[in-house]
């Protein structure tokens, strides 16, 4: 008898929880559909969104330090219109010097790109030589390099890295502050690299090799900086 009552009880509970669930899936459907329709109507696709996200990060990280992993860029329906929602987890604003340095680095990068484009027109072999030298130099202090390989352009990648080394020289006055920042960033970067590696499995191994170099370089660099700090103290 007990079993029978337990069974009835379960069925009653099932009945009520099921109706609740139904309400929920209705809302799920409504929201999914709204979003899909917006995407269809505006002809927006995830590829475009991802590019936009990358460029947003590049732009914003000139002015603020943020948690890039948590940055959200979404299109959400709002009153029959499509709203671009950008949620940025800001850690802190950058100070004047850093902003100046970032802007300067960007200008330099632009110049470099222009120069390189010119050189490429004149002589393509020069590029290869450049690549070899850059490997020894780069440091990973800036925000720019993290999203530069969205387009999987390994060349672009190296350019930004070199630009970043110049930036690091400019900001070296606050070694302690910088280091804190760096730890956080490194974590993010590695996460991002993992994701990217997964995504780009089919791509050529060029980028992943670079990432490896990158990590080794990072470790070395950190040791150096630790030594420096000890000396100072």
């Amino acid at each position, binding site marked *: 008898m007990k079993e029978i009552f337990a069974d*009835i009880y379960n*069925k009653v509970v099932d009945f009520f929880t099921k109706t609740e669930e139904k309400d929920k*899936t209705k809302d*799920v*459907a409504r929201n*999914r559909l709204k979003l899909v329709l917006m995407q269809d109507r505006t002809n927006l696709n*995830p590829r475009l969104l991802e590019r936009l996200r990358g460029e947003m990060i590049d732009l914003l990280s000139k002015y603020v330090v943020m948690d890039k992993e948590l940055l959200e860029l979404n299109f959400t329906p709002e009153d029959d219109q499509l709203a671009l929602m950008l949620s940025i987890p800001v850690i802190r604003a950058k100070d004047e010097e850093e902003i100046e340095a970032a802007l300067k680095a960007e200008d330099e990068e632009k110049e470099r790109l222009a120069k390189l484009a010119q050189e490429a027109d004149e002589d393509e072999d020069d590029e290869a030589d450049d690549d070899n030298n850059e490997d020894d130099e780069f440091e990973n202090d800036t925000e720019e390099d993290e999203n530069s390989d969205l387009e999987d352009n390994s060349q672009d990648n190296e350019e930004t890295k070199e630009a970043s080394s110049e930036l690091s020289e400019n900001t070296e006055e606050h070694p302690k502050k910088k280091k804190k920042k760096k730890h956080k960033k490194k974590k993010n970067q590695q996460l991002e690299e993992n994701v990217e590696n997964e995504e780009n499995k089919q791509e050529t191994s060029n980028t992943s090799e670079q990432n490896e170099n990158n990590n080794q370089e990072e470790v070395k660099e950190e040791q150096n900086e630790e030594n420096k700090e000890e000396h100072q103290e």
Partner: protein
Amino acid sequence: MTGRVLVITSGKGGVGKTTTTANIGTALAKAGNKVVLIDTDLGLRNLDLLLGLENRIVYTIVDVVEERCKLKQALVKDKKNPNLCLLAAAQTRDKTAITGEQLKSICEELKEENDFIIIDCPAGIEQGFENATAGASEAIVVATPEMSAVRDADRIIGLLEAKEHIEKYNLLLNRVRPNLIKTNDMMSVDDVVEILSCKLIGIIPEDTGIITSTNKGEPIVNDEKSLAGQAYQNVAKRIMGEDVEFLDIDQPQDFISKVKAFFLNLFKKEA
């Protein structure tokens, strides 16, 4: 590895081609097969919604055909099952954006690394149908026990028979309502099979769970309790060559009839 290429078609719209594609594909993948689902309904894609992958589509079949990306890049992996991939249709183009030959060569390429390629065919018998069937060697004709659906299914069967590369085709009867059949208000499964004289591969009962599962973007085969889910599971088994009996779909569905059936069972036992 040489995979099998199946096309899910019906002629009439709204009989459950896309639902069938999503569920059979998921069931086959759950059984350990490598499966690729291809949505060929250019301009009216929906398979992505049923699988809950609508926000992950970066490249579509048109991008592959027009060589903007590699075939592998365009395959969207399912959220739950890594064995299952979707090749989505383009939403902004029409049926003329690809040709049957192009789809055939895509299937040939996918065959090498997958066990099953399942093509979701658009409704109608025009270009879209010709494209979708071009690469397939087997077909599943979906119909409901309604006059218009059966008539269109018969037309489709005629067209499939004329295609030499279609080696076999089977009938899947969808949205069957045992209650209506009992009161002789709906053609029975046997009636439809007799009219179409086609081998049956599955009987799927009408199930409200289909609506909620579509809402969630999760095929109903993932719900082990649901009758329609079990029926789709059985279809997948039959495709894999197992001999499975047809499910008894005359089971109580709503709460009241469940309670009724429960007490009836109880009295039977007592007696």
